[in-house]
């Protein structure tokens, strides 16, 4: 089993003709993702040539793409200025799961887009995230397919490349993954740690979870409490930013809301207090998962 995406995922790529969009569409198709459509305004009627000469129809609008190809997932590689609009377009067209890869979307644009997607009943993953991958079935986003393998560990992370680091290590240790999810590093993200943990909780194949957080905000603290209350499988955690200088990314006013500094040390302690095994180094994650699984 898996969460969010699997063999039944039918993907539409928004921004399929751009540099990153076209490169990663090819990569996703090579991995086996069923890409059913692409959208680039002004290029409707053309087609995208994937690996092995496979043709993917391109549409001008999401409405047309949905009507003609029935996707159940969308991935967004649109530049920052237009990305929030692309998310709302996908939600409006009725796509239930929208993965926003784009980095640098204005926060106030995302405040509107999240509210809009919520009203449409769509889930947004990201933005500023690497997407997700269910090994052996489907990949949506930019995670390198070569570093994963099917198995019992669910992975959830705020980071992109740090997720690859952890996943790669699991795979090298012969431990596969159910689904690896990158939730994104932006202040306003559509799917948080607790949302992903809730999904893993109901996935019978997920026997252990790796959770990778970083400084700032309070999502990790909230997730730690959720783990203690609801998660029965072992959880291994890592927090990046132990040496990060304070005050560089966190605003004065942000600290008032959280009521705490959101430092790595604090988050690691909250993890420990709630029964999560904390990895001091990324390279300790594999060993801790091995111990937890008894393999």
């Amino acid at each position, binding site marked *: 089993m898996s969460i969010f995406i699997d063999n039944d995922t039918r993907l539409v790529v928004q921004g399929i003709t751009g540099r990153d969009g076209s490169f990663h569409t090819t990569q996703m198709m090579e991995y086996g993702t069923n890409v059913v459509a692409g959208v680039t305004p002004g290029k409707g009627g053309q087609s995208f040539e994937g690996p092995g000469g496979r043709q993917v129809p391109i549409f001008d609008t999401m409405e047309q793409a949905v009507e003609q190809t029935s996707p159940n997932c969308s991935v967004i590689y649109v530049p920052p200025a237009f990305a929030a609009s692309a998310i709302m377009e996908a939600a409006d067209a009725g796509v239930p799961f929208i993965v926003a890869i784009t*980095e640098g979307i204005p926060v106030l644009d995302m*405040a*509107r887009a999240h509210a809009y997607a919520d009203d449409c009943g769509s889930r947004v993953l990201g933005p500023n995230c*690497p997407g997700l991958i269910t090994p052996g079935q489907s990949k949506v986003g930019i995670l390198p397919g070569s570093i994963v393998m099917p198995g019992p560990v669910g992975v959830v992370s705020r980071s992109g490349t740090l997720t690859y680091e952890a996943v790669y290590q699991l795979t090298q240790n012969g431990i596969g993954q159910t689904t690896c999810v990158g939730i994104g590093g932006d202040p306003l993200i559509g799917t948080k740690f607790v949302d992903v943990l809730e999904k893993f909780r109901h996935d019978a194949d997920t026997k252990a979870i790796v959770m990778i957080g*970083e400084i700032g905000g309070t999502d990790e603290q909230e997730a730690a409490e959720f783990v203690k209350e609801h998660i029965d499988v072992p959880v291994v955690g890592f927090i990046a930013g*132990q040496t990060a200088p304070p005050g560089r990314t966190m605003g004065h006013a942000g600290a008032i809301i959280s009521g705490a500094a959101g430092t790595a040390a604090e988050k690691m302690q909250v993890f420990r207090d709630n029964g999560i095994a904390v990895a001091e*180094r990324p390279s300790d994650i594999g060993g801790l998962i091995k111990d937890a699984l008894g393999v």
Partner: protein
Amino acid sequence: MDLHEYQAKEIFRGAGIPVPPGKVATTPDEAEAIAREFDGLVVVKAQVHTGGRGKAGGVKLAKTPEEAREHATDILGMDIKGLTVEKVLVTPGEDIDTEAYAAVLVNRETQAPMFMVSSEGGVDIEQVAEENPDALTKLHVDPRFGLLPHQAYELAVALYADAKLQRQAAKVMSQLYDAFMNAGASLAEINPLITTPEGEVKAIDAKVSIDDNELFRRPEIAAYRDSSSEPDAETKAREAGLTFIKLDGNVGCCVNGAGLAMATMDLVKFYGGEPANFLDIGGSSNPEKVVNALKIITADPAVKVILFNIFGGITRTDDVANGIIEAMKQIDIDVPIVIRLTGTNEEIALEILKDAGFEAYSTMDEVVKKAVDLATAAAPSGA
């Protein structure tokens, strides 16, 4: 991006918020001339990107133009929390009856703009939040509809009992929300929002932070950037599309992705070294970005070794490899470079580096250990 008080006040005035006049001086002569123009009591205020200016002696009252000149002489060039004061704002002094607090910011949890107001203003608002949380009123705004009139009134009622003051304050709240949205801000704060004995509501201090992601479509706000208030390397990095933060160590770090960059710094420390910087070369890296990154890192004389840690996803590792080769042609690098590259197009990248005589490592621990060893060997005194 943080704005100076005088810039934030320009934005507030543009939105219609009652803000006393004021002018910026860079010399004592100018400060004196401005004070003469205002003809009366003035306040001379240091313009630096930090709080606690008053406590540091950066805000002073002057009764005469001569006194304004003296204060400007003291304040200009003053060091406040490591920042040098290069400008002062000269503004007429106000008679203050009450001091309140009002701010709009983006709340991560509710994913919406949020107002925070308190009738206890003019003080450290974090302290109010901690000691007397009931004195702080919070209100969320649906960004699709904006601040609704009844919400603006609710905020005003939380601040004042008097109907005339409430009407003025409700207007200020709407104007503050407009200023916040139109500037693409992440924070817009008035502290204090005063009332005068004549029954007027005025903003006598202003703080605005802009979401950097908004600047591409707001050139008029981007022009407010004061590069003299940040380290030279950080200005150069930003112009090159890199995220760079200068630190005190000697291991120069060049990493893709903020999370991995932080974890790399953490690991340098774990193995007994000290990172010289945080540097995220970002996604879709092209060779030019790597060239710029190396120029910025090597400009720091403290750097004894350069550590690359690249895990390719959206970043193609062959782009990074080409960038390193290109940079070696363009600049003289006299410190060792240790490289770890893995992920997308890894085979091509390793081939490129091998042909150029580099040794590439496969794990993060190996490469970090190597970098720390080289840095330690280059600085045997532990400097």
